[in-house]
């Protein structure tokens, strides 16, 4: 190891200690509940219920991160009590890959994928041999196909296949041409197709409003709702029960609806 690496090491340790405030120095108090979360909207929602939990004697500590691997590792190594950033298909993929023992405490919210069009006002008006653009990455392609299936536009060989591709379409009565395109490209090319499946983040960046412009949106039953994940078998811990109660309250539902105006919807 060279000199510059040696100098960096203490900084690295300090940074790690900063990310996990409770893990090094002070022994965590009984009432402390640590949750790792993505900044938007997950940490914002947790922030909203902090006072409610405090009233019940629970100090909610939110550890914000953009990383998608750290929260599950931290959960599994008991550095946090829960995390809130992922949907169930992603969680299952991680469990398979890293053999974590974790499960969903509750579905909280969903950034609904939508079907948008500049040409038709309703999915019933989809023309014969029309063209539909869908994302070409594995998760979003399957997600788009499941949404199209739910709207009765196509059928898949396996109706709940989270890895479906266009090759798995078993019935396509309107003989639609389904184009697999880069997810970020779709809003730019919306004029060129009869309809397209677009992720909410890209729709918003293209100034499309999920609640006003989408012909169809995923609903709260979507498997892609983001969940609070906990270690298997801990769902009856009183502080986690309190967390679940606060995160799935009517107050939270109103807060989500009012703050995100349909770009994010409650999934409980």
């Amino acid at each position, binding site marked *: 190891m060279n000199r510059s690496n040696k100098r960096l090491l203490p900084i690295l340790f300090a940074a790690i200690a900063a990310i996990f405030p409770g893990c090094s120095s002070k022994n965590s108090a009984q009432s402390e509940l640590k949750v790792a979360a993505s900044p938007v909207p997950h940490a914002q929602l947790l922030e909203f219920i902090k006072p409610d939990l405090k009233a019940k004697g629970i100090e909610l500590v939110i550890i914000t991160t953009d990383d998608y691997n750290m929260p599950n590792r931290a959960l599994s190594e008991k550095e946090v009590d829960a995390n809130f950033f992922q949907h169930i298909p992603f969680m299952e993929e991680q469990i398979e890959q890293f053999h974590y023992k974790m499960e969903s405490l509750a579905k909280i919210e969903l950034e609904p994928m939508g079907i948008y069009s500049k040409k038709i006002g309703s999915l019933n008006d989809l023309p014969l041999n029309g063209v539909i653009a869908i994302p070409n990455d*594995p998760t979003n392609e399957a997600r788009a196909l499941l949404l199209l299936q739910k709207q009765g536009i196509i059928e898949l060989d396996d109706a709940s296949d989270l890895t479906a*591709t266009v*090759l798995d379409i078993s019935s396509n009565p309107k003989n639609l041409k389904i*184009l697999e395109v*880069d997810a970020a*490209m779709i809003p730019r*090319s919306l004029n*060129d197709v009869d309809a397209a499946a677009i992720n909410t983040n890209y729709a918003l960046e293209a100034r499309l409003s999920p609640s006003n412009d989408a012909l169809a949106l995923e609903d709260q039953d979507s498997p892609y709702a983001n969940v609070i994940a906990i270690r298997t078998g801990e769902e009856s811990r009183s502080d986690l029960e309190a967390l679940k109660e606060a995160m799935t309250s009517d107050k939270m539902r109103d807060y989500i609806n009012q703050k995100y105006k349909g770009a994010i919807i409650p999934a409980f």
Partner: protein
Amino acid sequence: MELDFELALRLLPLQLWNTIYMVALASFFGVLLGLPLGVVLAITDKGQIAPKPRLHKLLSTLVNIGRSFPFAILLVALIPFTRWIIGTSLGTNASIVPLTIAAAPFVARLVENSLKEVDRHIVEAARVMGSNAWQIVTKILLPEALPSILSGITLTLVNLIGNSAMVGLVGGGGLGQVAIQYGYNRFNAFIMITTVILLILLVQTVQWGGNYLVRSIAKKRGTLLYE
């Protein structure tokens, strides 16, 4: 590694055809645009048969701009233009436009270099005998530079096969999209390897064909160093 022949058969023949189709048409149009551009670049440079330094500078700058774009960005930047020409910015036909625009300046530079390498004495002789610029280009420069231009076109084809791997961004299809979408993103090593082998074979065939043409012309002209 799972040998998923069924998936391979559903994907590869069609997408191999898409790659050939896109690359062939883009090369054709690329040469159609790039060849005249290259000729003008070559003859308008200082010390050439029709020096026009300002025009040369302008065209040269345009060619450099065209060649500076990373292909993926060119693809996005050209969306309105593509839509105007083809009527859509998505799909295999739409992919031919950015591929052509990427190929044309490349061809132009190669043609320019090929023409400038033609023996000055032959050009000089033609000029002394009263040939005008048009005659020098069509009767001397282009025929003399033909083998070198053909090598350049071969290079362009191989280059375009590489670029065509990116058109999956706009749903263009082709072997590149299969390699990325099914091989890389979905961890299907068999599909990835088969696709890459097909691409290698395609490039080999193109290069072999180009070399063969160049060699047969040289043979006819008796300019091969060794038989």
